[in-house]
């Protein structure tokens, strides 16, 4: 018997008034996969991720998580998804630790304290954990946001430009963590503008343009120049 895919999207559409941000996207994501999404500004990547992570209601189309259809706000799914968006979702007046504790409680994380400590250590913020987020540098905020995203060991990790503001060291840590997640019967989908880094991390790459997910290809089937060529072809060719 074969298990249903972790996440499956059929005919996803999202309109903002007259503007169609995501147009008819089909996508399946299986455990052990790490998908990297590329595309020009305004292609609809963030909107697609918001749809997949259930923080935005699709205008049309349906979503299945482990074979069961779901709508935004379904707790069974929410518990297993971790999301990093353009904004950090953090409270500027609470300390790093208080932020994680708070979210940990809402996710019903068990053994919260030492889990929080561990995550803070993964992103290298132990030293600052009792400082208010308002005093953090951009990269520190991004690190904390990542810790928040991974806090409850989500089965599906959704990351929108996760490398933003991270220094070399932090970026390296993140790559390592993501590879672990992938190889641990969980799945990752991320958006980035850095083709090479995306390709190296991913098992599969996809390119969006004008709201459409134009191509998908296994990462190993492409080398650096190959991916760039593909990207350019998709973006230039008006579909």
């Amino acid at each position, binding site marked *: 018997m074969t298990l249903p895919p972790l996440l499956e999207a059929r005919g996803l559409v999202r*309109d*903002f*008034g*007259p*503007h*169609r941000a995501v*147009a*008819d996207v089909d996508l399946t994501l299986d455990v052990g996969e790490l998908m990297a999404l590329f595309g020009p500004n305004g292609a609809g990547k963030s909107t697609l991720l918001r749809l997949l992570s259930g923080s935005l*209601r699709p205008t049309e189309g349906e979503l299945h998580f482990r074979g069961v259809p779901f709508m935004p706000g379904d707790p069974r799914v929410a518990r297993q998804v971790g999301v990093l968006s353009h904004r950090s979702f953090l409270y500027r007046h609470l300390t790093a630790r208080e932020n994680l504790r708070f979210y940990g409680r809402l996710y019903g994380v068990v053994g919260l304290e030492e889990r929080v400590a561990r995550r803070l250590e993964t992103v290298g913020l132990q030293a600052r954990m009792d400082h208010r987020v308002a005093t953090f540098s951009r990269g520190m905020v991004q690190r904390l946001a990542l810790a928040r995203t991974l806090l409850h060991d989500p089965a599906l990790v959704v990351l929108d430009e996760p490398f933003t503001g991270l220094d070399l060291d932090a970026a390296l840590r993140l790559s390592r963590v993501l590879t672990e997640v992938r190889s641990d019967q969980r799945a990752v989908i991320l958006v980035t503008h850095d083709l090479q880094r995306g390709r190296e991390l991913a098992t599969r790459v996809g390119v969006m343009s*004008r*709201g*459409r997910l*134009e*191509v*998908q*290809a296994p990462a190993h*089937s*492409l080398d650096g120049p190959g991916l760039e060529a*593909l990207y350019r*072809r*998709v973006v230039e*060719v008006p*579909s």
Partner: protein
Amino acid sequence: MSLRMIRWTALTLATAGLVLAVLFHWQVFFRVPTEASMGLVQRIFYIHAPAAWVAFLAFGIVALCSAVYLWLGEARLDRAALAAAEGGFVFTTIVLLTGPLWGKIAWGTWWTWEPRLTLTLLLWFIYLSYFLVRGATENPGRSQRFAAVVGIVGALNIPLIHISVLWFRSLHPQPVVVRADGPSLHPDMLNTLLTAMGSFTLLFLALFLLRYSVERMGDRADALVREQLHPTPGPTPRA
């Protein structure tokens, strides 16, 4: 029901409503007995009360459609609610105009602070905010849900308005029709009132349908724009 049909029914209803309107005006001026205590002005009653009831009906529809809209997320219901709300707003305004006219003569003042009057005015305000909320968000779906909530909560005022005259010592006359022990009216008065009632109801329904069809056309327009911006996909490049 197709838009064309909707518009035709609307027009027929409108004409019927107008005919009845003529009829009841004739009754008001040539048929009904003059009420003893208040004299001629009392004849405003035949506009005043029906207008109020139609307004209630309208807001009832708003609440109903809104509730179902929240439940099913069916865009049409939202449009219907909006259409009804505008009708209700108009008729409430009529009540708020005829009332003072009557009051000036019956009570010697345009306005007094008195539960039913105030609550009616507030009802008017609630639906004003109903329209405000619609325009005031970044994304349409959201404002529609907000409006729905306002519409539902606002309707909770209606029973209060009806009961207010019974609960509080108030200038405003007690119910003469909608009361436990049946109508307490001269039969001529009663059927004039009913004619007026019918006329207003038809006119309201006509207005309602027209606005509804307009809203729907707006949606069509959006759809067309979208179709232009995103023509149905051609062959997509493969990796």
